[in-house]
């Protein structure tokens, strides 16, 4: 059958397609949007990018809670008597047309004043007249045209704002650096030759002095303050020798200029700060679109539906839920609090989010149910027995908060203790050596030592090398939270895998049926049945049928689902063999049957969660340089394909989130460096505790638990290679260090003899800085180029 592409979203139009003259749609939603746009003269939208729309199938988000002022408050940026400005996350933004459409939103609704899209952050700043359109209507309008806003309860306005002060500091340093070079070079280039030269010398000197002061006090302050703090805490960080150098440079230069004994080292000082700040900027840039520290609140809706005594529903913020509140949950809703179930008949609660076990569990009226579960088929009500914060699951985080965050010291910091010591000693030695013969020279030489030993290069090595690694990894779909992570990765010995959603695909799959004697008609109806159920098995079957390019038959009446049994519709039944009331014998190891009037139509074997593609090589490579573990919330499966790589002793099942975390910390107690790979809420505790928590995520906009790194699911196959690459990059760092040391030695050899002229400093310092930068950047990118990793990113 020929498949038409939807004019709006480009998705294949199935048999329920709507065809108009020369346009067709996959669903009425797309049709609506298309006409809205056309009627408002926005059809350029399609010209810019063919079929640029978002599919309108299964698009039902509920924004009614936004009608409550105190619920919308946190999302409002600014409001006056006329206008309101909100900043909304629109994950659906994916192409240039999106920008165009959204920024012309005012054509769709006159209440909208202006829209400004930030494509990188997939975020829109919208100014509108609250008199004409409410934030709820706005959200619904956006949802209607395919950009449902994403409201997170962990939302905060300030997130991912770039560090402006750093930019100021860089700008200032750069400006001054340029001009000071201008006034210092003449000296090096033999200013004396010129008859009027000597006058310049003084004047340029004073100009430099004036120029350097703002740089010192503003651009340099962070280093000075940090050094001061470090001193008062008695820890040696790299800021210490840096500040030492800065002060020496400034003091000495100021003295030389004021006493007119020399030109000073102003250009070296300005350059030093400029390069340091650039390094800072370089390493501070990370992936604005990703959020590495989402806590549980990210998983829960902003509000729940509370059933008042008079029976009507009012939205209520989660933290406002009180014990005894009666909350209504519709199918698909997340249970926000621990509570007592109140429902007429049995309901299925899907705890896969918490445990990883996908089959829904049966609960009945009066049962205690825990937050984190999901309502499957029927709507039901829960009477809260705890506040959200108190609920069982959330202890995971509450306990975390107690944990002290260890003061993260990187290699440079650790090295700098000895470094500083060495510098001071050499300085003193120099002083002592010259003092008897020539006190003036002694001071000169000693300060020279401090100046030249200033570990600018040392301090630049990490930002540029690691910064480059972060960028390269980003290209391959492995997103690191910060440079610290890189160092932690170096020492990893243990790798713990979660099963469902990590080592295995979260979506179960099935192979061809053991037996099948059904025609396309049957299949169409069965598909239709499956589509009405949220049960994982039905969904698995559905996806299987869709892959067979079956289209659901239009069925009017409702499919009845008996929990844990199966589905029945007219004469069709599918589910447990028993449920299907087969006349004939059930085929061997048939786990799921489809029957029509007791006639077996098809029988399926176990529906297993498939292992991720490439799992074998990944485990293979990892097991060579580390020990592997598997922690799963599921019941132990019959077969464990991974037994070759993961010692069965390390495989543990039916693990609660707490057990997982305990397991990790147990290993750490044994002094092991542990990496945890997980995806779900149930791994969050372990991810947090592990030295390196890596969250696997199917796509950028979807939630991933708090972690040190996010791995694009598509990049899983080369996970081991990526780790290997990071470890290899260590050598680049060492090389950079070596060079830095070399420069210091050369410089020192001048300094201790009191021979360090400004020219030498002016040449040596930028030279070292630049070569470090080149080694760091160039080295890493070259290695990436040579190791030929396969570029693989999330599909936009």
């Amino acid at each position: 059958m020929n498949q038409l592409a939807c004019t709006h979203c480009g998705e294949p139009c199935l048999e329920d397609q709507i065809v108009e003259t020369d346009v067709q749609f996959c669903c009425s939603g797309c049709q609506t949007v298309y006409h809205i746009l056309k009627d408002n003269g926005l059809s350029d939208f399609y010209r810019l990018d063919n079929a640029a729309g978002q599919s309108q199938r299964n698009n039902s988000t509920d924004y009614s809670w936004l009608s409550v002022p105190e619920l919308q408050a946190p999302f409002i940026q600014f409001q006056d008597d006329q206008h309101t400005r909100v900043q909304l996350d629109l994950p659906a933004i994916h192409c240039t047309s999106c920008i165009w459409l959204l920024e012309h939103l005012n054509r769709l609704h006159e209440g909208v004043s202006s829209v400004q899209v930030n494509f990188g952050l997939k975020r829109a700043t919208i100014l509108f007249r609250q008199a004409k359109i409410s934030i709820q209507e706005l959200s619904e309008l956006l949802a209607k045209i395919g950009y449902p806003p994403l409201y997170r309860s962990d939302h905060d306005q300030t997130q991912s704002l770039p560090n402006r002060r750093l930019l100021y500091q860089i700008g200032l340093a750069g400006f001054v650096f340029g001009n000071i070079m201008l006034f210092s070079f003449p000296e090096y280039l033999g200013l004396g030759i010129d008859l009027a030269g000597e006058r310049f010398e003084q004047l340029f000197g004073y100009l430099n002095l004036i120029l350097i002061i703002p740089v010192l006090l503003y651009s340099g302050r962070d280093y000075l303050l940090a050094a001061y703090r470090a001193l008062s805490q008695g820890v040696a960080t790299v800021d210490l020798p840096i500040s030492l150098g800065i002060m020496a440079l400034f003091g000495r230069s100021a003295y030389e200029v004021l006493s007119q004994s020399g030109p000073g080292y102003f250009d070296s000082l300005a350059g030093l700060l400029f390069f340091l700040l650039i390094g800072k900027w370089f390493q501070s840039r990370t992936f604005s679109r990703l959020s590495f520290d989402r806590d549980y609140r990210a998983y829960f809706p902003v509000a729940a539906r509370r059933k008042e005594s008079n029976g009507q529903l009012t939205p209520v913020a989660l933290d406002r839920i009180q014990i005894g509140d009666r909350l209504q949950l519709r199918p698909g809703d997340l249970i926000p609090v621990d509570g007592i179930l109140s429902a007429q008949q049995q309901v299925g609660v899907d705890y896969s989010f918490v445990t990883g076990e996908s089959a829904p569990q049966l609960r009945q009226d009066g049962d205690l149910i825990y937050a984190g579960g999901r309502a499957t088929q029927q709507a039901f009500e829960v009477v809260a027995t705890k506040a959200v914060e108190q609920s069982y699951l959330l202890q995971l985080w509450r306990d975390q908060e107690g944990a002290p965050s260890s003061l993260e010291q990187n290699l440079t910091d650790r090295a700098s203790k000895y470094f500083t010591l060495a510098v001071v000693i050499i300085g003193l030695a120099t002083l002592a050596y010259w003092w008897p013969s020539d006190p003036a020279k002694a001071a000169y030489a000693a300060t020279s030592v401090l100046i030249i030993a200033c570990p600018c290069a040392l301090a630049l090595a990490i930002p540029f090398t690691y910064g480059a690694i972060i960028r390269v990894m980003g290209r391959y779909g492995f997103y690191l939270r910060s440079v610290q992570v890189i160092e932690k990765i170096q020492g990893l010995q243990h790798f713990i895998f979660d099963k469902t959603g990590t080592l295995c695909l979260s979506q179960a799959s099935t192979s061809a049926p053991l037996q099948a004697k059904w025609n396309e008609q049957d299949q169409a109806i069965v598909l239709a049945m499956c589509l009405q159920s949220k049960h994982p098995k039905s969904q698995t079957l559905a996806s299987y049928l869709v892959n067979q390019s079956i289209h659901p038959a239009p069925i009017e009446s409702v499919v009845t689902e008996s929990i844990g049994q199966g589905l029945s519709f007219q004469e069709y039944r599918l589910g447990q063999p028993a449920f299907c009331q087969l006349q004939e014998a059930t085929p061997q190891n048939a786990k799921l049957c489809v029957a029509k009037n007791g006639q077996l139509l098809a029988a399926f074997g176990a529906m297993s969660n498939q292992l991720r593609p490439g799992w074998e090589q990944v485990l293979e490579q990892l097991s060579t340089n580390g020990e592997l573990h598997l922690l799963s919330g599921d019941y132990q499966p019959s077969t464990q394909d991974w037994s070759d790589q993961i010692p069965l002793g390390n495989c543990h099942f039916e693990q609660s989130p707490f057990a997982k975390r305990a397991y990790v910390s147990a290993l750490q107690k044994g002094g092991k460096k542990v990496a945890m790979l997980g995806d779900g809420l149930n791994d969050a505790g372990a991810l947090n505790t592990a030295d390196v928590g890596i969250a696997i995520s199917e796509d950028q906009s979807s939630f991933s638990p708090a972690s040190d790194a996010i791995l694009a699911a598509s990049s899983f196959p080369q996970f081991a290679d990526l780790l290997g690459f990071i470890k290899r990059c260590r050598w680049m760092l060492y090389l950079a260090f070596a060079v830095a040391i070399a420069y210091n030695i050369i410089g020192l050899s001048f300094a201790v003899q009191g021979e360090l002229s400004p020219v030498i400093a002016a040449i040596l310092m930028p030279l070292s800085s630049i070569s470090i930068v080149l080694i760091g950047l160039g080295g890493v990118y070259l290695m990436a180029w040579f190791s030929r990793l396969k570029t693989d990113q999330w599909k936009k």
Partner: protein
Amino acid sequence: MMTTTTTSDPLEKEVDIEQFSYDNKIVRNFAFATAFWGLIGTSVGLLAALQLLFPSLNFTAETTFGRIRPLHTNAAIFAFVGNGIFMGVYYSLQRLLKARMFSDRLSKMHFWGWQLIILAAALTIPLGISTSKEYAELEWPIDLSIAVVWIIFGINMFGTILKRRERHLYVAIWFYIATWVTVTVLHVGNSLELPYSFWHSYPVFAGVQDALVQWWYGHNAVAFFLTTPYLGLMYYYLPKAANRPVYSYRLSIIHFWALIFIYIWAGPHHLLYTSLPDWAQSLGMVFSLMLIAPSWGGMLNGLLTLRGAWDRVREDPVLKMMVVAVTAYGMATLEGPLLSIKSVNAISHYTDWTVGHVHIGTLGWNGMLTFGILYWLIPKIFQTKLYSRKLANTHFWIATLGMLFYAIPLYWAGWTQSSMWKQFTPDGVLQYSFLETLDAIIPMYALRAFGGAIYVAGVVLMIYNLIKTVKGGQLLENEFAEAAPLRASKAGHKGEHWHRWIERRPVQLMIGATIAVLIGGMVEIFPMLMVDENVPKIENVQPYTALEIEGRDIYIREGCNACHSQMIRPFRSETERYGEYSKSGEFIYDRPHLWGSKRTGPDLHRIGGKYPDSWHYNHMYDPQAMNETSIMPDYDWLLVRELNRDYTPAKIRTLMSLGTPYADDYPEHVHEDMDRQAAEIAARLRTDGIEDDELESREIIALIAYLQRLGTDISRQPEQ
């Protein structure tokens, strides 16, 4: 001040969308002017090129090479490129800011003002009204009107920026702003001159200082008139034409700021090996080299924008031209710094290499980008399609070939001539006479003229194509647009004033203070500049006599400095050929300096006393008579015209007020003094058998007086 955002208050109106229109008329006007002056500028250039081949083409005094060359450079830079800039800015600025130009009246004034200035230039330069400063030949009344028009442009631009409806200032706009600010400063800085008559003036600075200011200006005229605005245009029109965003917007921002902080200081590299202090020369060299990085960043950013669209580049003449333009930019910005390396410069300077270099920039970078923009923009505002893509493609190929035919021979010529200049025979004497080195490169000149000719042909093609396009379409004078006005800026400082903002931030305050201090410093230093007491003095060096001053002004009028330098560099090859190398102390009375930048003819700094007066007399009458391969035009009118002495006292007084130490009563006695000196020269001429009763009053006498004085002071024994 930047925080005030919109002129109309949206709170009053029912809906926030403002409807307005873009002014396409002004864009069209500038576009037409660009095309027209493009033709003129290149044609005049062609004439100049041909004059170097056929001296007979120097028809009249007004059309001698010495006056045609500045006419060409001014037409190309300020008429062609200038209008091109305004065309590009007026179109893109309105759309980038979602606002009509600040004031249509100002736009009109700007347009007509600029055209008038060009006209004035086109008239005064052939009439010999010139300051002799390259790219700044225009005399003070025109300088003033340039300032006025430029300020009008500024008001119009910043006004538009203030009433914009788009919060973000696209990087192109930053380039436009930089252009305006720096050009203002440069123009003022280099036009500091003291008039002695309505059409003439002397510069405030003399000799070396004048030269430094001139090349600080000269270089930055290139940097900020031919480069930054065009980079802005590139960042707008290249993405538009390719219909894809610039490769890396962040890179373009870095490109801008890096360029801004380095460019302004590369100037002195134009004076390598001159009497400029050594360190200042090297400074220019260092900063020039630093420039490679940002420039190439910009070029790559431009080219990478087209990655994945090369199939379209093959099709589309607009993109093709832009690609060549950007590449030419890369080449020129690599070559420039290389030429500023002293050892390279030692070879290239004063030769045609430099000429080739600048033409890669103008023909390639400016020319091609302008053509590309014209082909893209005219159809757009005339709501039609380009009349013929075929013609446009032809133009592309012709122009590219023309450019190569122009540049390559000149590189060759430069290299050849320079090495011949430096060639010694085994027994240590110069191997070639200057004329021989010139004859050797005449063939390259012919090739260059050919290249120029076909480039002009290309321009003609374009104009035809555009006229047809315009005829086929209909100008959309006011292009409808709508956008929401800006409201109180979101950047957390609601309605706060910038000075309040500073007061709350000590550091910014400190920077402000720093700059204030610097201003103070300037105010102090400026007067010191007027009195040059500490420019190195050489005992013998005396001010020019009145007659010599007149002669010097004739030298300037005729634009002799277009072909003759007055700066002998400290190389053996030059001291052998011309005499002792030039010292900065010799120029302290030179207002303006006449160092020149090109040696089509030999250096003249030590010409004084080299030949008898009669030689000069006859040489001016018919250069070919003295040596028949010479390409110097005849200046026979100097032999008949009477020297105008009316302004002489005024000139002397002006020079005195600028610090030239004449005897206080000298202005009263100038005429006697002139008569005395003229009589001496006339006598010598007569003894050599030159017959003319009016001899004493001819212009030629003054010129000879000047030439014979040139460079003689240091060798002359102190007078009695």
